[in-house]
């Protein structure tokens, strides 16, 4: 016969399981927004061809990043913002559009008088564009992908003087398909978009380009459907064969499900090692495997932590495609935690495994410091969900401290950021997991109701105190010094205080959050653009003008403004977009603030409520199931 606490735990577990099931179901079978395509472009390009009855997640499977050349303004950020070095964006030659010109605007520097292959005449900073004589007057231009850095200089030259056959495209053999593409975040013209992995190219061909550039031809061809080739292939007399434009295909879709299988197998194995085998050594080996596979081989993507953002955005934006594999990556560790505690953190998460390697001098922080610092992940989770749900940013990915290391190509700034975090991890074990990880908040709460959590001792605690300092994460609850449980009237009084304090905190923080909506929204690119447009069109009012501040002259216009001007959007549209975003942030600000208020309230409740304990037990919420304490326990099963 279970006691009341066990009964409530079971009830909560059932509730959480049902909630997770409903949540997953809602994500998988969420309705498609019929007014906007999930892929962001017209149905004629889609294999489904308007037959979109399947649930979005099942239908989409896998999406990859790509550049829409029609929107690209060649700002150079593809070369400088990609997490890869050199960039995964490469110049790609649509041979079908090429005029095979002698005086190629993409090849020669402006003003070049001698049309030869001398390096000083070449526009490309890395000499990646190769010129070969075919026959008079035709020259073939090919891109050396190894040398190309994706700067777009040749693309601009070709577009200005020629047919625009040189175009920037993401090459999927190099692209890591980051959850939030670093270039996409900084692209001033929103030319980066997600496309189905089985149709990964947005290369302009004569069909697509018909509406793009040349006024006369575009107009003429608008009535021609797809029948007329706007740039007929030159009539070569030699045996020259025009090359086919190739864009490397992305990683096979089935491999995403292989990741899911490996995640599931890892979770099963680690859970077994933790609960049955109780072997710290094997758990450590398993964490090394996870670090190697999910960390260095899969380079940190896909990960359950980042999946929070995909899920959040998918809930609020029905046009966002959420692959089934990402849903599973989000849900599976939660389900395992519900039943077996945080075995995911023990040895499956590569972040935890990596930080574990640096915990040389872990210090106990004490419960007060743990509680205070413990609020940070709530803030991080709240902000991550807020920014993801509003389509602003994926900040978990943006500030992923280890992905650069996993990929061996972190920028200096990112390397420094990771280095500082790892250095702090020398003294504060797993600092990211404990005081930053937003997914940890979910695991923390769910683990409290876990059915079978690791216990320090397999039998009765003999109070030997050997395990007392074994946990580097302060996740062992000591026996309380009081001799008996707290008296009922005192508990009731505390309960009454909390029932007043917690709603007050929720409202107060909610109000604060909503008041800060403009500050929060200032991160959003649409709001940033509106501010820039406003400053440009109205000028900075004298009362707002700071000392020495002047309006940007036209020559120093930001690329965002240039892209805005090129897009044909009106100022009113930009302000309207920003206004919608601000409204979203106002509502979300209330929710975010309320959530933080609730977290504070519960933190206070946790400090106020005294739990009577006579043994050394693991703190189910904070314990990572790493089994260090088990090794210290002299009692063996």
């Amino acid at each position, binding site marked *: 016969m279970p006691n009341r606490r066990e009964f409530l735990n079971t009830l909560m577990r059932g509730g959480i399981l049902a909630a997770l099931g409903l949540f997953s179901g809602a994500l998988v079978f969420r309705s498609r927004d019929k007014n906007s395509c999930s892929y962001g472009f017209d149905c004629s390009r889609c294999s489904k061809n308007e037959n979109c009855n399947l649930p979005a997640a099942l239908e989409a499977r896998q999406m990859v990043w790509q550049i829409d050349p029609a929107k690209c303004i060649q700002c150079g950020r593809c070369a400088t913002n990609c997490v890869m070095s050199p960039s995964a964006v490469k110049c790609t030659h649509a041979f079908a559009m090429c005029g095979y010109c002698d005086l190629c605007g993409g090849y020669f520097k402006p003003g070049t008088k001698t049309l030869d292959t001398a390096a000083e005449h070449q526009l490309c900073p890395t000499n990646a564009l190769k010129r070969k004589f075919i026959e008079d007057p035709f020259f073939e231009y090919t891109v050396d992908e190894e040398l190309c850095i994706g700067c777009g200089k040749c693309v601009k030259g070709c577009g200005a003087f020629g047919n625009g056959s040189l175009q920037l495209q993401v090459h999927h053999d190099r692209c890591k398909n980051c959850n939030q593409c670093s270039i996409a975040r900084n692209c001033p013209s929103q030319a980066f978009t997600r496309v189905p992995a089985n149709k990964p190219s947005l290369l302009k061909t004569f069909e697509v380009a018909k509406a793009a550039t040349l006024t006369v031809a575009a107009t003429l061809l608008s009535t021609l459907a797809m029948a007329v080739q706007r740039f007929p292939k030159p009539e070569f007399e030699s045996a020259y064969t025009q090359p086919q434009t190739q864009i490397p295909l992305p990683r096979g879709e089935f491999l995403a499900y292989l990741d899911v299988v490996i995640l599931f197998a890892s979770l099963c194995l680690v859970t077994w090692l933790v609960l049955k085998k109780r072997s710290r050594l094997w758990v450590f080996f398993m964490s090394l495997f996870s670090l190697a596979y999910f960390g260095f081989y899969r380079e940190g993507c896909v990960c359950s932590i980042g999946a929070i953002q995909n899920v959040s955005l998918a809930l609020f934006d029905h046009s966002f495609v959420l692959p089934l594999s990402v849903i599973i990556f989000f849900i599976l560790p939660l389900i395992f935690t519900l039943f077996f505690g945080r075995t995911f953190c023990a040895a499956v998460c590569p972040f935890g495994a990596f930080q574990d390697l640096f915990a040389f001098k872990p210090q106990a922080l004490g419960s007060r410091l743990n509680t205070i610092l413990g609020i940070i992940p709530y803030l991080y989770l709240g902000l991550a969900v807020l920014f993801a749900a509003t389509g602003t940013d994926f900040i978990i990915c943006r500030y992923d401290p280890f992905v650069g290391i996993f990929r061996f190509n972190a920028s200096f700034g990112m390397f420094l950021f990771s280095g500082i975090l790892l250095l702090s991890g020398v003294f*504060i074990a797993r600092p990211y997991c404990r005081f*930053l990880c937003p997914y940890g908040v979910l695991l923390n709460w769910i683990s409290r109701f876990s059915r079978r959590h690791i216990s320090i001792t397999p039998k009765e605690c003999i109070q030997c105190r050997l395990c007392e300092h074994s946990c580097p994460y302060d996740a062992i609850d000591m026996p309380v010094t009081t001799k008996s449980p707290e008296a009922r009237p005192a508990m009731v009084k505390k309960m009454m205080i909390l029932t007043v304090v917690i709603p007050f905190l929720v409202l107060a923080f909610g109000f604060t959050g909503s008041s800060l909506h403009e500050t929060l929204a200032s991160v959003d690119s649409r709001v940033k653009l509106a501010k820039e447009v406003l400053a440009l069109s109205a000028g900075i009012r004298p009362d707002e003008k700071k000392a020495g501040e002047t309006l940007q002259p036209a020559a120093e216009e930001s690329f965002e403004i240039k892209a805005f001007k090129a897009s044909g959007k009106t100022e009113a549209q930009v302000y309207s977009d920003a206004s919608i975003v601000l409204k979203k942030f106002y509502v979300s600000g209330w929710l975010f603030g309320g959530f933080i208020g609730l977290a504070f309230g519960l933190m206070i409740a946790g400090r106020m409520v005294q739990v009577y304990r006579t043994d050394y037990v693991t703190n189910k919420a904070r314990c990572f199931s790493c089994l260090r304490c088990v090794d210290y326990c002299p009692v063996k099963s």
Partner: protein
Amino acid sequence: MKQKIFIAAGLVLLMIVIVIMLLDLFSGHKADPSNPYDYKMDEIRKTDSNLTAYTEQLTIRISLSEINAVACGAGDRIYVAGKNGLEIFNQDGKPDGNFSFEGTASCMALDKKDNIYIGFQDHVVVFDQLGKPVMKWKSFSSESLLTSITISGSYVFLADFGKKVVYRCMTDGRLINRIGEKDPEKNVPGFIIPSPYFDLASGKKGELWVANTGRHSMEQFGNDGTLKSAWGQASMAVDGFCGCCNPSHFAILSDGSFVTSEKGIERVKVYSPKGIFLCIVAPPSAFIEGTRGLDLAVDSKDRIIVLDPEKKQLRIFVKKE
């Protein structure tokens, strides 16, 4: 004590990480407006103002949604054709009529009777001054893309970008012969036209001039298709034709000089009848960067009429005093 130092060190480092994140997220720093890989065209767009021998006399706003062709008729009336219609202006730029039609005009010319020949993609329709269709020619080819038309005596010459050939026709549409068609047996190399800008015009003696844009040259042909002369050089310098394929359009002045317009570096220039660069009519700074399709016409007073599709204007230039 040692433990406290370690904890303090760890906490300070952790706080540094958090502060970096918050500062980066909320600092509102602007993205760098500079592009280390910028394609700088400023230098080549600069021209010596002493070379500009024309001044803009008149600007006429066009109400058509898309404009592609300009021509001059009797009494120096100016005709502009584009999508679904045509507008007529007198020599002072005052509206003097208009009519609409279905489709998008790509090129236009007027005969001595002021009949308006309008090229639509693959065929020609002849309108009278009131906009009544007088004649509709049959399609040249499903692949045709007519980009220019000129009338010389009893012949109508048409440039077909799609087939890369010039047609010589009678005014009733009967095809007489093809000019410049690639023929390896006769050692005719054919036109090299990489993009859909393929212009032609008749000179003061009725001779046919064609812009072979891929070769950056102006070529003169006899009625039988014999190449008689050519001039032009590829160069981004002011005296040459820039980019992959220029001049995109041209017209011929009463003294036989050529007025040319280019894309890439948007500029309008005048060359002597022998192809020697003479002066600039409108420098690149006169146009919005990226403007293409600067069709040209010349009236009886040798005023140069430039069609600016970006600004949707007719711009009339006259020689400086």
